[in-house]
């Protein structure tokens, strides 16, 4: 039986107006503008030209693969490291609250600041990382200047920056697991490994779902960190969809970049919606 809302409908009106004006109208308008040649002075109807152009953009395939690679790598690392850190930081080790703050701290720092900082740290000859490596006799690579390494370096920085949030979600998730399960398992003679694998992991699954979905969406639409660290370079080697789109906007091709945004929106929806459904279906009734 559906419960009748205690509020009259006009209570929803202010929120509905804001939602319509700031979200629905621009979204619908963006579908229209993606079909035009649009610059500050006019919008000429272009049919599907922008979509055809976007899909024939030689760097788009590379950008798409890079985006998927980036989202996958960062989600996996954030999930695994986040869970392990959360287990460590709920185990009652010395200085636990201090360490929790340390892990969470990078989340609070401006992404652009993080990007610029690591751009300096990763300088091939003068950066702190390679200077430290040189001190122990290792010839460090060009983290951001080697085309096959640049995207991976950005991904590592993104994990460093984002793992705190994953850890926080996991800590919240772990605290909801009743101690009874662990006690019962221990009485049955479960090892520490079995406790982790058979009790913690299944019961913390809702947190895992949240972490994966959030970091996947974050990874697919990532822009600021890539732009601050490499601007998609060297050449196009660390371009992601969002940076390709931004470059079209910067060149004044507003219609084309809007088409790119529609494509990015569809891509995220196509990947995340089924994944969310699948992950949720695996949740246990705890």
């Amino acid at each position, binding site marked *: 039986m559906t419960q009748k809302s205690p509020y009259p409908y006009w209570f929803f009106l202010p929120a509905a107006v804001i939602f319509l004006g700031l979200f629905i109208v621009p979204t619908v308008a963006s579908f229209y503008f993606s079909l035009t040649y649009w610059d500050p002075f006019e919008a000429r109807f272009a049919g599907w030209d922008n979509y055809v152009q976007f899909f024939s953009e030689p760097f788009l395939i590379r950008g798409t693969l890079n985006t998927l690679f980036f989202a996958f790598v960062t989600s996996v690392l954030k999930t695994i490291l986040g869970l392990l850190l959360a287990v460590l930081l709920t185990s009652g080790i010395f200085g636990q609250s201090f360490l929790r703050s340390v892990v969470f701290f990078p989340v609070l720092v401006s992404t652009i600041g993080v990007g610029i900082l690591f751009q300096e740290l990763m300088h091939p000859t003068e950066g702190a990382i390679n200077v430290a490596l040189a001190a122990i006799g290792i010839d460090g690579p060009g983290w951001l200047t080697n085309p096959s390494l640049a995207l991976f370096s950005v991904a590592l920085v993104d994990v460093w920056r984002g793992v705190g949030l994953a850890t926080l979600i996991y800590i919240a998730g772990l605290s909801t697991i009743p101690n009874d399960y662990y006690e019962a398992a221990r009485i049955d003679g479960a090892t520490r490994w079995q406790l982790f694998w058979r009790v913690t992991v299944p019961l913390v699954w809702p947190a895992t779902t949240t972490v994966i979905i959030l970091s996947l969406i974050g990874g697919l639409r990532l822009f600021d960190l890539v732009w601050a660290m490499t601007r998609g*370079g060297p050449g196009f080697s660390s371009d992601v969809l969002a940076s390709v789109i931004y470059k079209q906007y*910067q060149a004044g091709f507003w219609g084309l970049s809007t088409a790119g945004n529609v494509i990015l929106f569809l891509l995220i929806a196509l990947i995340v919606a089924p994944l969310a459904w699948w992950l949720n279906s695996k949740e246990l009734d705890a």
Partner: protein
Amino acid sequence: MKARFTSLTAMALALGATGVSAQELSILIDNTPASSGAFTALTEAYTAKNPDVTFDIEVRPGGGEGDNIVKTRLATGEMTDIFSYNSGSLFQALRPSRTLVPINDIPNLDNLNESFLQTVADGDGNYYGVPYEAAMGGGILYHVPTYEELGLEVPQTWDEFMANNAAIAEQTDKAPVIQTYRDTWTSQLFVLADYYNVQSQEPGFADAYTANEAKYATTPAAQAGFARLQEVYEAGYLNEDFGAANFDDGVRMVATGEGVHYPMLTFSLANIEQNYPDLIDDVGFFAQPGESVDANGLTIWLPAAAYIPQTSENVEAAKDFLNFMASSEGCAAIVSANGATGPMLVEGCELPDSVPRAVSDMLPYFNEEGRTAPALEFLSPVKGPALEQLTVEVGSGIRDAQSAAELYDADVTKQARQLGLPNW
């Protein structure tokens, strides 16, 4: 009592009247030191002559972000009375005949250089802008003491240039060629500054290119710019950190002699003058050499200009200010503020007797007929936005010259279609 009241009223009215005739002109300029130097000097000189007119100078970022600010403010009618912006293909993208006020009727228009005027004109014979900078050369800055030490001559052909590089690589531990790809725009010089050589071999290239008939990939003279970049990379002549170095590093290297050749625009001399004033005369300049000694000349960049938007409410006052900019007096104010980085394109505007060495290396090209050619972006509205990424790829050995030229042709096609140019 009554008389006193009347005289007070008269005074108040008189004050009010001055308030009306005093005028404030707003100006939007980009954030380079050269622009702020020029406009500060110009507005001070103008106010000294016309005390009624004061100015409000607003600064905007440069690059793509600045393009968006200028276009958005023009489109929404929020533009200042006067604004600074590039000439050439970027100027054309502002749709001048729909957004700007023609300045054909200012008395000093005749003082302006003819090839400059072509870059601030629409198709109907209207002119829109007055320059506030010197013309620039795009070519190669070099470290003079190293040349003297090794007994090298300024190269007249590309082969001589490569021979000099070989000598430098062999006899010193300096980098023969400096590249700075953290600032990606700096990677384009070998291609863009090669345009004099393209034009000397294919005189009709710019028109055919605009008409979608000539391509970089299929015109050997045009493709050569990419090939030269590849050649320099493959010979191992680049500085070790070329991927992480930025423009300031490049300027430092060529001034101090850590590197010997830096392909660059001559506006960078202002940076050397600011950061390394003692070393300014250690830096010389030559045009990017081509195939033969007989066709040696300089690719030039025409200066940015000041324009008046149609939405200005002070058009006549703004025109009078632009007219002042086009006078030798206005030009002298700019030169005294910024020094001389190249020829000023205003007639009767003399450069000081002592100019930096690289500037005096550049002036002879301007003084001889046929030894300069404007860069392609001043001859054609067609310019692809991805060139700087492609040249980084060629200069880093990620992609070869031919494939980069083909991709650049595709990029250019995209730009022309987005702009709605005919024939594309």
